[in-house]
């Protein structure tokens, strides 16, 4: 169990890194947004991992006495997922408008076109 636990946390760190890298280094706006969603998804994993309890079940009460995992991180992440998709949707809206005005969604092109 411990191995798996460590694995969850390490994967969180790796995904965070991959997503963050894409946001910073990729000049394509859509790619940046995808990177951002990976970046956020990594954080979701962190929260959900910490809410898990050994031999627990989902916090939905059943007849038998059970050990339930912590519902609070799950609630927080439900909210965070929705916040994430909202940001993505708005970001995509902006990207579409940028494409209409500039004819490109590459950061490099846009910087060049603004310099003129």
């Amino acid at each position, binding site marked *: 169990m411990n191995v798996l636990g460590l694995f969850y946390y390490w994967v969180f760190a790796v995904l*965070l890194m991959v997503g963050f890298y894409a946001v910073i280094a990729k000049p394509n706006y859509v790619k940046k947004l995808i990177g951002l969603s990976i970046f956020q998804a990594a*954080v979701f994993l962190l929260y959900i991992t*910490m809410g898990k309890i050994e031999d627990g079940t989902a916090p939905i009460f059943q007849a038998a006495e059970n050990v339930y995992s912590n519902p609070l991180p799950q609630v927080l992440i439900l909210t965070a997922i929705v*916040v994430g998709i909202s940001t993505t949707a*708005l970001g995509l809206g902006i*990207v579409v408008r*940028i494409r209409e005005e*500039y004819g490109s969604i590459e950061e490099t092109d846009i910087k060049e076109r*603004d310099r003129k």
Partner: protein
Amino acid sequence: MTTIAHHLPALQVIVPMLTAPLVMLLKPAGLARAAAIAASLFAFAIAIAMTMGVLDGHIYTYRMGSWPAPYGIELAVDRFSVLVLLIVTGASSFALLAGQRSVDADISHDRQPLFYSAWLLALAGLSGIPVSADAFNIFVFMEISSLASYVLIAGGSNRRALPAVFKYLIMGTIGATFYLIGIGLIYLMTGTLNLEDMAQRISGVEDVNPIIVAAGFVTVGLALKAAIFPLHVWLPNAYTYAPNTVTVFLAACGTKVSIYLLLRFDLAVFQGNLVEHAFHFAAFLMPLAVLGILVGSTVAMFEKDIKRLLAYSSIAQIGYILLGASLVTIAGLTASTLHIFNHALAKGTLFLAVACLATQCTGYRLSQLGGAAKKMPWTAGALVVSGFSLIGIPGTAGFISKWYLISAAYEQGSLGIALIVVLVISSLMAVVYIWRIVESIYFGEPTSDLSSVREAPIAMLVLTWAAALLNIYFGLVPELPVSLSSSAADILLGPTP
């Protein structure tokens, strides 16, 4: 039966928030605008009512859904919160009341209900942060305010607003996510999200790695949102290309709320619990503050576009706020929170005056504003007064905070002297960049025909001057902000050992 006064903290947020969906449905645009103004003024009135309450020694707490903290979400309003609330609701009301011309110029009538709806959401989000006492709830409201701000900025008529807002969106989301990671790590170690509960529980686990890392993540994430140098790169373009009214609103309070949060976390939650936290905090922020002051002022001195010039000046002014905070003394924090208030006042007024200029002038370059003062003497006058306040000329609000800042620095001995030198140099730089504006509008050669230029609409002028006079009023009678900010400093540093 509970009284209205009991509900004030909740009403502060839900009045603008629940008006937003209504505004979206309203047609024509005038009606939407009127509803937005009404909601904003109502929120302003609530902020004033709570200010009077806290000045009487009251501390507002409110349990959402009647659940006890830390299980439910608690709202808490103290003297520091009301200071920020006053800025947020006041800036929104002034900007909305003055903004009709500017909004009409940038946004067509059929889109205005959406715009005003987003405005109210930004207002609700920005006021939701200072009233909340729950770390995750703050995140949610931070996102409401951020998303709404992106929408507002994207309303600018220049296409460059779009890449600017995209950059802001990316950096803002990174900042918020960092904050979320930090909160997660703290939650992992303490099991709570309520700020007060958190502060108590951290003291049991203060020296473990996750908490130290969490302090770092929260600080950096909020620093991104607050445009602290060198994480400020989103700010200049966002302020420059946003519609003028939006710039007035956001320049006055957008970053202030994040700074508020930064101080709350670093001083009220971590301070006193983490080993040598004050030292780390100061060592991290002070160099950034000094660099921000110097770099922001330098760029502003050479900038040709008036809005961008003022935006870079904001970066320098944010540096002042941080510099005071990084001293981690009562005097320093008083100066810092006082400057939050005074800078909001000065910068808001400056951008209001710019909005007035923009109703008549062809562009925002200093050269394009040449000679505008001849045709628009009142606008120019307000610009000068608020410029004085930004420089810190005595008799204006800006001077008071500068006075406190220098006094606070004197207490620091030789390090303080170095800081005073920085403050003095940057004040002189402020003289230079403000004077470039003054000279160009008073003595500059007009680049285009000025015969059709008239004074800005009377409603805008009245509000701009009201704001300008507030700069003077709080320069001569600064009792209110000073008493709020000195007790804010007490709150932040806790009972002095």
